[in-house]
């Protein structure tokens, strides 16, 4: 019962969040220097053409009128028409979102698969060479920019060794797994480095905790101690971090999708910003906000399952 109430509360709280996001993004986009009408008409257009396009786009209307239209249309599921793509924003988002989601989920899965076992290995061998080696490798991963790692992987694994395709994103599920492997690894390397560090210290902390010492004293098998007591408790802070990282992962797709020529929402976002495509920027940001909020909600719910004390607060 407490769980249902908690979920409902969290959902209701999301309404003002979205409203705030809408206000901020609406104003931020309009604060950008540069005129979408020029971006559409091109530099070569005359001033009269620009004025006509501004008029047609409703950019001459007072700000609050534009905002009111934005809010009411959005509530009706109409995100407007993309200036750049010449199509409804919702269509653009829906067409490209699956690719980005696929890439993000793929990257998250890979980060956990990389970070989990290595963190465990490092924690259990704290201070030994295994620990030092793992930490050193991840330090390098953390300090390199995402696009650079991407290019390195492309050059060696794809172009030279021919193990993976250089670009494209495949048709079937397996084909996508294959095509998006390098982009997913690129994004995952950074996240897994952060996760690994956090999980390693969490495991170490739990290993030293009294209840683990007590469990050992009781003579519980090692597998049970590590599985039930250590991992579940160590995961609490890592899950929070993972939730936060997903927001970062999605912004990472802006770069990765460009380097790997993957047509997802990240690349659309970059294109939209350069073209001052107000409706598309707004639509994409809102989509990002919804997704990140959903991830945070799930993180909280998962955390409250891991740690029942959360629900009572």
């Amino acid at each position, binding site marked *: 019962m407490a769980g249902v109430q908690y979920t409902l509360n969290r959902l209701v709280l999301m309404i003002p969040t979205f409203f705030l996001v809408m206000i901020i993004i609406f104003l931020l986009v309009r604060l*950008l*220097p*540069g*005129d*979408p009408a*020029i*971006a559409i*008409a*091109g*530099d*070569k*257009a*005359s*001033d009269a*053409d*620009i004025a006509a396009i501004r008029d047609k786009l409703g950019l001459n209307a007072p700000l609050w009128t534009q905002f009111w239209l934005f809010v009411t249309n959005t509530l009706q599921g109409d995100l407007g028409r993309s200036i*750049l*793509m*010449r*199509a409804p924003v919702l269509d*653009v988002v829906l*067409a490209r979102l699956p690719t980005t989601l696929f890439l993000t989920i793929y990257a998250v899965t890979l980060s956990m698969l990389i970070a989990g076992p290595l963190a465990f290995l490092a924690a259990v061998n704290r201070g030994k060479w295994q620990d030092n080696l793992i930490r050193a490798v991840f330090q390098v991963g953390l300090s390199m920019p995402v696009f650079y790692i991407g*290019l390195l992987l*492309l*050059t060696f694994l*794809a*172009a030279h060794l*021919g193990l993976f*395709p*250089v*670009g*494209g994103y495949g048709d079937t599920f397996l084909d996508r797994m294959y095509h998006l492997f390098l982009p997913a690894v690129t994004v995952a390397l950074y996240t897994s480095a952060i996760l690994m560090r956090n999980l390693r210290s969490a495991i170490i902390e739990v290993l030293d905790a009294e209840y683990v010492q007590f469990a050992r004293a009781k003579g519980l098998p090692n597998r049970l101690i590590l599985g039930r007591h250590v991992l579940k408790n160590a995961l609490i802070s890592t899950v929070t971090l993972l939730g936060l990282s997903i927001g970062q992962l999605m912004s990472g797709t802006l770069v990765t999708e*460009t*380097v*790997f*020529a993957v*047509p997802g929402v990240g*690349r*659309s976002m970059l*294109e939209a910003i*350069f*073209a*001052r495509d107000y409706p598309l920027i707004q639509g994409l940001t809102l989509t990002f906000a919804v997704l990140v909020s959903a991830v945070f909600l799930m993180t909280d719910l998962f955390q409250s399952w891991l740690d029942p004390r959360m629900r009572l607060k």
Partner: protein
Amino acid sequence: MKAAALAVGLAMSTALTAFTYQTADALERGGTLNFARYDGSKLVDPIYADRNPDIWMVGSLFSTLLETDPDSGELVGSLAERYEVAADGKTITLTLRDGLKFSDGSALTGEDVIFSLDRARNPDLGPWSGLLSAISNVSADGNTVTITLENPDPALLSMLATFNTAIVSKKAFEAAPGETDQDKSAAIFAAGGPGVGSGPFFLSGFEQGASMSFSANPHYWKLGEDGKPLPYVDGVEFQVIPDDATRVLKLTAGEVDIAEFIPFSRVSELDADPAINMYLFPSTRIIYSPINTRETRADGSPNPLADKRVRQALNYATHKDALIQLILQGAGKPMSSPVMSSATRLAVDMSPLYGFDLEKAKALIEEAGLEPGTEITLTTLAGSADDATIFAALQQMWQPLGITLVAEQVDGATRGAKNRSGEFDIHTYGWVDDVNDPSQVTGWLGYYPTRKAVGTGWNNAEFNGLYEASSTEMDPEKRADQYRQMQEIYAEAAPLLFMYETPFAVAVSGKVDGYIQTPLGNNIFENVSLER
């Protein structure tokens, strides 16, 4: 054959290719060409195409009445086999070829020409209607099309070879779903099938920003060396790969056959690869920097650049060959005409146009009485490596003049807005001709009523008068003379920092033959054949 094809080399390679076709036992037909693009098309409709990635594709899907011969640069017949201009220059009569068909097999008639040209000159539709403003009526009788003009227009024949006058099928267009012209156009491109096109290919697949597919039009009128309809290939598959390095990797990995917009820093490396032909196609692209010539800056302070002598001094103090080495690794040449590239018709060769002369520059600065330490801002594109190099080089080059160059980095949209509002001292810019006639670029750079002479605010009555006179001058010699005078006036006034011309750098797999990018940038696939 391994060569970086400049003007001569290109002509030679075309001739060689033709020779091979004739002597080979059988020309290889079929196969799909894979092409890596730097940016995707949004709408490949003749009248709505307004960005280069759109414009450069139109010719593959739609033919025009006339076209530019890639070898001679002269206008020749395309859908129209011949044309005639009346003595008073106010009527153009064109004769369509017999048996023309659209890609769905339906007949292409005079009605389609009327429909297409009326659509192209409708100011409520596309952004290019102004190029056809001289037309008052288009009519057709059988295979004869008559275009009546309000006033003679020497550029009009070139417009009939320009993407926006390409012929679309009236029947297919009207049958398309949608209320407005724009809806119908969008519906046709979304459907991805033959029907509306008259070019060597039709659009068979289109995922915006990601990929595009062209399939061979079996009814194309032009014949190949083997006497069968062009094109030789079954189709072209385009992938959009915005990252330069990834595009090159795709080509070297053999995943694509052609990669465009090769960064100049990679040209020599690809040229050395025996499996790749590195082409530097001659282009109409010029890189220049507009200079604000207004008496005061946007903030009201006096503008040192309003003095012609200062602008001239900056031009003399700019070592163009050094810039070309730094930025293009030598693959370019200094601008030789102040308003157009040397590949544009009526360009006057004025080289060296402000050749490097530091002493002259210093003298001019002194004459103008410019205070040492004067600050000038160069507005550049954030993230552009080329612009960063230009800034660093100019800062060094202009320092002996006592000028402190300050950088301001913005994105493209902001730069465009600043150009319009005049809130800049100098900014980087570039141009590629859209039309095979110098009127467009000359109007853009120098004629004040068109966008205040590329935003510089330069307003010269003599230049403006010459430009207006040239736009109705039907005598080619007189027109050429007007253009010569305009170039001289412009060079002297120097409202620009004249920099350089760059070619189109395209890397092509050795198994591809016959690909051309024209000086206007159009991608020509109709003569491409693949070795298999």
